[in-house]
């Protein structure tokens, strides 16, 4: 039985190493968000010298400036207002990502059904045009997008972001939904057609209810991508009216007035929505992929 033991040992060792690799930076974020700045900057390192604090979180939500010198740090007495924009930025990201999700539900399922079931001219080229369009690197599209948005007068609006993110997420949604719709037994739809349903009615009454898990999965996936997007958020938004979370966090992190503890606290807050969503997204995604017969 020594062989079995060896395998077990390797398995658990691998699991432990993997856990450490994944969690190390996140643990540091969480820890430094509740450490006084003075402890973080201490050399030789002694993180728990001055105990734990929650002033950073308090400042972000209430605006109450930390008073103790331990928190603000010896060198950095200034504190930036920018961090207080984080909750608003979460809201902005949420609005945009939610709207993109709705567009994906609507436009995505409408387009996927014909690709899955109907016969029409130039079907394959159009399908490839749509699904492959996403593979062009976004930096290549940055200048034209910026100029188009500028010409339309949509700089610094949610609309611009919603449109761009919809374009970026739709190809994937359409690909997955097409695969999923094709996996639904045809007989059910044929029955509906015999009852006089046209394709649109069949989609709404039969296919969408059956494909609900996959629809939710792709919708949430689009939500996550929009919530995470950085480059266009950086280019299109100019004020806190529309600035999204990744953009605010990146600028906060480069701001010399913001202590690392405060940056950590804002990151920890910003990650909460993503962490809540990750498990359902993944469950639905994997289900959709496997059932769709990609593999």
């Amino acid at each position: 039985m020594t062989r079995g033991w060896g395998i077990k040992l390797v398995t658990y060792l691998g699991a432990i190493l993997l856990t450490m690799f994944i969690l190390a930076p996140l643990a540091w974020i969480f820890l430094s968000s509740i450490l006084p700045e003075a402890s973080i900057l201490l050399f030789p390192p002694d993180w728990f010298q001055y105990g734990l604090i929650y002033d950073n979180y308090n400042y972000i939500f209430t605006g109450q400036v930390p008073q103790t010198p331990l928190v603000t740090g010896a060198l950095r007495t200034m504190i930036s207002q920018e961090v207080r924009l984080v909750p608003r930025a979460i809201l902005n990201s949420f609005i945009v990502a939610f709207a993109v999700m709705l567009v994906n539900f609507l436009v995505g399922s409408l387009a996927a059904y014909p690709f899955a079931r109907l016969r029409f001219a130039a079907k394959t080229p159009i399908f490839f045009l749509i699904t492959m369009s996403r593979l062009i690197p976004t930096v290549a599209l940055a200048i034209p997008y910026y100029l188009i948005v500028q010409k339309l007068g949509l700089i610094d609006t949610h609309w611009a972001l919603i449109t761009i993110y919809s374009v970026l997420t739709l190809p994937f949604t359409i690909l997955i939904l097409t695969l999923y719709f094709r996996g639904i037994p045809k007989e059910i739809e044929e029955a509906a057609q015999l009852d006089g349903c046209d394709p649109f009615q069949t989609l709404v009454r039969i296919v969408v209810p059956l494909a609900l898990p996959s629809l939710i999965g792709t919708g949430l996936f689009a939500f996550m991508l929009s919530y995470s997007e950085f480059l266009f958020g950086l280019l299109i938004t100019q004020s806190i009216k529309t600035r999204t979370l990744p953009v605010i966090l990146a600028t906060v992190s480069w701001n010399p007035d913001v202590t690392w503890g405060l940056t950590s606290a804002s990151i920890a807050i910003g990650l909460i929505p993503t962490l809540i969503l990750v498990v359902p997204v993944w469950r639905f995604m994997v289900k959709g992929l496997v059932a769709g017969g990609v593999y």
Partner: protein
Amino acid sequence: MVARERLRRLTRSIRFSAYWMIAPAVLLVVAFTLYPYIYAIWSSIRVTSPLLPPAFAGLKNYEAVITSIYFLRSVKRTLIFTAASVPITVLLGLLTASLLNRRFIGDIALRALVLLPWAIPISISGVIWRGFFNGGWGALNALLYMAGIIPKYIGWLTTPNLATLVVITVQVWTQFPFATVLILAAMQAIPEELYEAAAIDGAGLLQRFFYVTLPSIRAMLAIVIIFEVLMGLTAFDLTYALTGGGPGTATTLISYFTYAESFKMLNFGNGAALAVILAAVSLIMILAILQLIPKGALIGGEEG
């Protein structure tokens, strides 16, 4: 006769349905992919500096870009970055998928945990790791020092070669979860009988991996590799947030270079030329993907 006429009308109405149903998606994609792309090509052959009047530039922008030493350096860096991060990402994904494909105590918790790096926006991952690797007070320095491994702190992000290693490490951290899940999905689709047959033939664990698992997931591996190559060639958020392209230009990859050329130097013409080059390289990769994916797998010929 009447029946045939009805049938014809029915097929025509179905075809019409197909067109209006795909119209919104097609319009969006054409308006925001084809048009901007043509626009990028157009501005890449023009002078579009804020200081100069617009004029035709021919291939001068391309010439200026390709002969620039900064361009060549960023290309070289991008190639090194991609060549290093892709194999590590795929290998780690393969190992992690093999691990998660086994039953052990805490396996479900680990499955959820593996998703974490994927779920975090890459730009934020960059910030998180910047704090972890910080040369003055970062956790890694502190931990290594406390363990007595290093006598004094190391400037992970301020030493060019180390910064390159850090960027590769973080790229792997952000990318391997996706690779893992795709590979795991492929592994779980392998019929159990194959393993049983191999076991009866006396194949050990490693043999089963090399003769059953690996051949069965070959197609998925190819997809993962090419996807990761694309992610490597076009990585932008990561270096923006982690190193800002520095120290100096040590981690300025081609995407970041394109961005800086367009939006920091405000040289849209050069930026567009760079973007077109980048897109062309990526398109070649896309064609490679299409070669590898069996045609019928994506869109059914008969059913459609």
